[in-house]
C-alpha cells in the first residue's frame, strides 16, 4: 500500500512539476552544431535548387531564379521557425499531442475533399495562393503523439494488442496518407515503429508489429496496378514505360563521375530529367558535383544525424529523447529512400531529399522538427554536452 501510495504521489509530483514548467525556455545548453549543420545543408540546397531549376524557371516564367526565390523565402521563414520552436518548451506539447494527432487525421481527410491534384495524386490543400501538404504536418503530429504515448502508456508496450491501441490514431492517419502517397506513409510508419522500438523493453513485440505493418504495406503495394508498374520500372528501367525517370536519373548520376561536370553544368536538368529540382535533385548533385560532392552531402547528413543521436542520448526525459529519435528517423528514412530511388536501388517513389529538395511545406516541416530537436537540446546538461 505504502509503495503504491508513494508511486501515486511521485506521479502527482511529476505532474505538478510539469505544470510548473515554463512555456518559454531560454539559456542553458544550445546545440549550435545541429543549427549550423542545418543551415549549411539548407544553403547547399538553395544553391542546388537554383542550379537544377533555372532552366525550367527561364522556360516557364522567364526568371531563372523563380523557384529559388520562392524556396529562399521559405528557408528564411523556416529559420525564424527554428528559433521560435527551439524557444518553446517541448514538454508542453504533451498537453495537446492528441489534439494535434486528431487534427492531422482531419487534414489528411480533408485533402480528399478540398485537395488539388498534381501528377495524378491528391496531396495539396490550397490556402489562398498558397498550398500545403497535410501529410507533412502529419509527420510532426505522429512524432509528438508517439513520443507522448510511449511515455505515458508504457504498460501497453507489453502486448501486441496494447501496441495497436497506442498506435491506433497514427495508423489511421498513415492509412489515409497511404491512399494517395505511399512513400510518405512509409516514412511516417518508419518514424512510428522506430519510436516504439527505442521505448519498448520487449523487442519481439515491436518486430511483430513492424512485420504486420510491412505486410500491410505489401498489400497496399500490390493492390493497385500503378504500383506494380513501379516494381517493373525498378527491375527493368531500360524497357519499362515507367522507367524513363529512373533511366534519366541514372544517366545524370553516371555522367557525373568522380568530380562531376561542375556546378551549374548539368545537362540532364535541361528538360531530360523530370523533377530535377525536386525529388530528383540528388541526381543533379551527382552530375554536377560528382561522387565527391554526393559523398560530402551524405557526410553532412550523417553528422547531423549523429548530433541528434547525441542529443537523444543525453536528454533529461524520455519524451524528449523519443521526439529527437523520431526526427532523426524522419530525416534518415527520407534520405535513404531518396538516394535509393535516384540510384534505382529501390522502386521509384516520390520522396524529397530532406532540407534540400524544392518544396515549401517539406522544408518548413523539416525546420520545425529541427526546432524541436534544438528545444530538447536546451535541457541537456552542458557538462554532458562537452
Amino acid at each position, binding site marked *: 500500500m505504502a509503495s503504491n501510495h508513494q508511486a501515486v504521489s511521485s506521479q502527482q509530483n511529476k505532474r505538478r512539476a510539469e505544470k510548473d514548467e515554463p512555456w518559454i525556455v531560454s539559456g542553458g545548453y544550445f546545440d549550435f552544431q545541429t543549427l549550423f549543420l542545418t543551415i549549411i545543408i539548407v544553403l547547399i540546397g538553395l544553391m542546388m535548387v537554383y542550379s537544377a531549376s533555372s*532552366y525550367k524557371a527561364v522556360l516557364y516564367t522567364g526568371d531563372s531564379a523563380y523557384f529559388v526565390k520562392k524556396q529562399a523565402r521559405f528557408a528564411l521563414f523556416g529559420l525564424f521557425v527554428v528559433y521560435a520552436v527551439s524557444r518553446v518548451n517541448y514538454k508542453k506539447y504533451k498537453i495537446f499531442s492528441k489534439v494535434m494527432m486528431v487534427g492531422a487525421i482531419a487534414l489528411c481527410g480533408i485533402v480528399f475533399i478540398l485537395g488539388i491534384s498534381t501528377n495524378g495524386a491528391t496531396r495539396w490543400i490550397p490556402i489562398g495562393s498558397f498550398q500545403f501538404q497535410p501529410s507533412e504536418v502529419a509527420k510532426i503530429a505522429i512524432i509528438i503523439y508517439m513520443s507522448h504515448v510511449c511515455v505515458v502508456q508504457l504498460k501497453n508496450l507489453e502486448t501486441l494488442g496494447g501496441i495497436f491501441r497506442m498506435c491506433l490514431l497514427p495508423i489511421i492517419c498513415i492509412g489515409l496518407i497511404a491512399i494517395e502517397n505511399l512513400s510518405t506513409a512509409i516514412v511516417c510508419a518508419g518514424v512510428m515503429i522506430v519510436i516504439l522500438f527505442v521505448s519498448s523493453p520487449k523487442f519481439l513485440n515491436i518486430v511483430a508489429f513492424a512485420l504486420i505493418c510491412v505486410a500491410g504495406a505489401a498489400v497496399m503495394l500490390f493492390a493497385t496496378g500503378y504500383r506494380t508498374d513501379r516494381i517493373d520500372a525498378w527491375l527493368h528501367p531500360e524497357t519499362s514505360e515507367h522507367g524513363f525517370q529512373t*533511366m534519366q536519373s*541514372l*544517366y*545524370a*548520376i*553516371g*555522367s*557525373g*563521375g*568522380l568530380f562531376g561536370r561542375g556546378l551549374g553544368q548539368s*545537362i*540532364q536538368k*535541361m*528538360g*531530360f530529367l523530370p523533377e530535377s529540382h525536386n525529388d530528383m535533385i540528388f541526381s543533379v548533385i*551527382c552530375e554536377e558535383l*560528382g*561522387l565527391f560532392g*554526393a*559523398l560530402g552531402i*551524405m557526410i553532412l*547528413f*550523417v553528422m547531423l*544525424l*549523429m548530433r541528434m*543521436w547525441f542529443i537523444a542520448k543525453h536528454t533529461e526525459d524520455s519524451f524528449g529523447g523519443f521526439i529527437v529519435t523520431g526526427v*532523426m528517423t524522419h530525416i*534518415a528514412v527520407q*534520405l*535513404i529512400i531518396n*538516394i*535509393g530511388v535516384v*540510384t534505382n*536501388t529501390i522502386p521509384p517513389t516520390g520522396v524529397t531529399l530532406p532540407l534540400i529538395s524544392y518544396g515549401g511545406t517539406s522544408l518548413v516541416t523539416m525546420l520545425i522538427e529541427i526546432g524541436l530537436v534544438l528545444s530538447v537540446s536546451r535541457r541537456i546538461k552542458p557538462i554532458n554536452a562537452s
Partner: protein
Amino acid sequence: MLACLLILVIMLARLTTIMLVKSEEYGQMARDIQERERSIKAPRGIIYDRNGNVIAGNKPVCSISVIHSQITDKEEVIRVLSEKLELDDAEVRKKVEKVSSREKIKSNVDKAIADEIRALDLDGVMVDEDYKRYYPYSTLASKVIGFTGGDNQGIVGLEVMYDDVLMGTDGSIKTLTDARGIEIPNVAETRVEPIAGNNLIISIDVNIQQYIEQMAAEILEKRNAKRVCIIVMNPQNGEIYAMTDYPEYNLNDPFTLTYTPEEGISNEDALNNMWRNFCINDTYEPGSTFKIVTATSAFEEGVLTENDGFYCPGYKIVEDRKIRCHKVVGHGSETFKEGIMNSCNPVFMEIGARVGANQFYYYMDKLGLFEKTGVDLPGEANSIFHKLENVGSVELATMSFGQSFQITPLQLMRAVSAIINGGTLVTPHFGVYITDENNNIIDRLEYETVEGVVSEETSETMKYLLEAVVSEGTGKNAYIEGYTIGGKTATSEKLPRSSNKYISSFIGFAPADNPQVLTLVLIDEPEGVYYGGTIAAPVVADIYTNILPYLGIEKK
C-alpha cells in the same frame, strides 16, 4: 543509428558503382540523348583521266531543313522556302508544321539558292553543305565510269569498283542540346573533320574516248546498228585508253532511259540494260578474229609454217557435215599466209584439226580465254565453251574459225595482246594511280601479268601475217598511209543463224612490228553491208589516222 549508417554505406557503394564503374556506360547513354550530331559530308574522290582531266567531280550543293521548335515566323518560313525552292506551298507547310526535331525540306539544292536562303537568316531554317557527284562530260565513257547514288555511294562502273578509295569519311559536329533539341550555348562542341576520299587516275584518255565515241555514233547512225563497241588498249601493259558501248547514257541523269524498252520489260531491267557494258558484261561469237588464236596454237604446237600449202574447194567435209567457206566457189590452192589473208575457213578447220582439241584448249587456257580478264569493272562475264570431252571434229572445226562458243570482246583483246606483245598475258585495266587530296600519288595500282604464254617466234610470225592481212588481204580497208597496221576482220552470224543478224568486227594494232595500240571495233546488227572488212576495218583506219599521231607514234 548503426543500421542507418549501414544502409547509407550500401547507398554509397551503389552510388560509387554507378558513378565510377558504370559511369562510362551511363555517360555514353546520356550523351546519346543529349547530343545532336550534324554530319559534315566528306567530298568523294575525283576520277581523272590519264592527262588530268576531271571525269567525275563534285559539285557543292546544300540541303535545307527546318527545326520545328526553333521556328519563330512560320508563315515567312513557308513562304520563303516554297518560293526559293520552287516547291508546293502545301507540301512545305506540312513539313514545317510537323513536330519533329528536324525535317528535311529539300536536298541537292543549288549553292547559290541555298546562300540566298541562308542570307535571310530565318529562325529554325538550317542550310547544310553537301556534295553531289558531277560528271563534266556527262555521257563520256558512261558505261565505264558509272555513277553514284543519293549518299554518294558508287552504284555501277568504276564508281562502285573503287568505292572504298573514292569514298571519304564524313566528319561530324556534336553539340549538346536540351530536351527540346535546342543547342546549349557556351558548351564546347566536338568537331570531327571530314576526310576527303582519295582520287583515282585512270588510263582513259578523254580525247581518244571522245573521238571513238564520235566514230561509234557515226557508224551507229550510218549502219542503223543496235550498238557499236570500240575498245582501244595498250597491248603492252593492258591500259585501256578508251572503251565505248555506244549508245552511252547521261551520268548526270542516269535514271532517264535513253531508249524505248520493249513491252513487258520493267523499268528496272530497262535501266540495267542501259547501264550494261557489252564490252565486258556480255559474250558473243567472235568469228574470224578468233582465227588469230587458232593460228597461234598451230604455230606453238609446231604443226604449221606460214608457207604450208592448202586447198579450198569452198567447203570442208568434217565427219558427215559439209562446212562451207564464206567464198562459195572456194579459194583454190593457197599457202597459209594467203589463207589467213583470205580468212579462209577450210584452212583453219584443217589447222585446228592438226592441233587437236586437247592442245587447242591448252593454248586457249594459256591465252586466258577460260577466265575473266580481271578488268577493274564490276560484273564481268566469262566465256562459254564446250566441255573438252564434248568436243568432236565438228565442234573443233567450227571453233577453229570462231564459232560455237562465246567470249567477251575484252577477252579477245587480252588474248590478242598476248599474241602480239611477245607473249605476255596482261590484265586489261583502267585504274592506274590513287592520289590524295593534294594529288600526291599514294598508290600505283599493280595488275597481274603472265609472261611467256606465247613464244617470241610465234608472236613475230603472227604480227607479220596479220600485217599482211591489212596490207594485202581482207583487212585492207584498215590500211593507212605511213603506218604498218596488223589486224583481222570478222563477220559473225548471230544466233539463231536464220535471223540473218550479224556482228561485224575488226581487231587491229599499230605499229605492226611493235604494237602500241590495239583496237577492237564491233558493230552489232548493222543493216545493209555487214562484212567486217568493209564496215569495221575503215573505222579502225579512221581512228588510227587520228590517234597514232596523237599518241606520238611516228610515221615510217
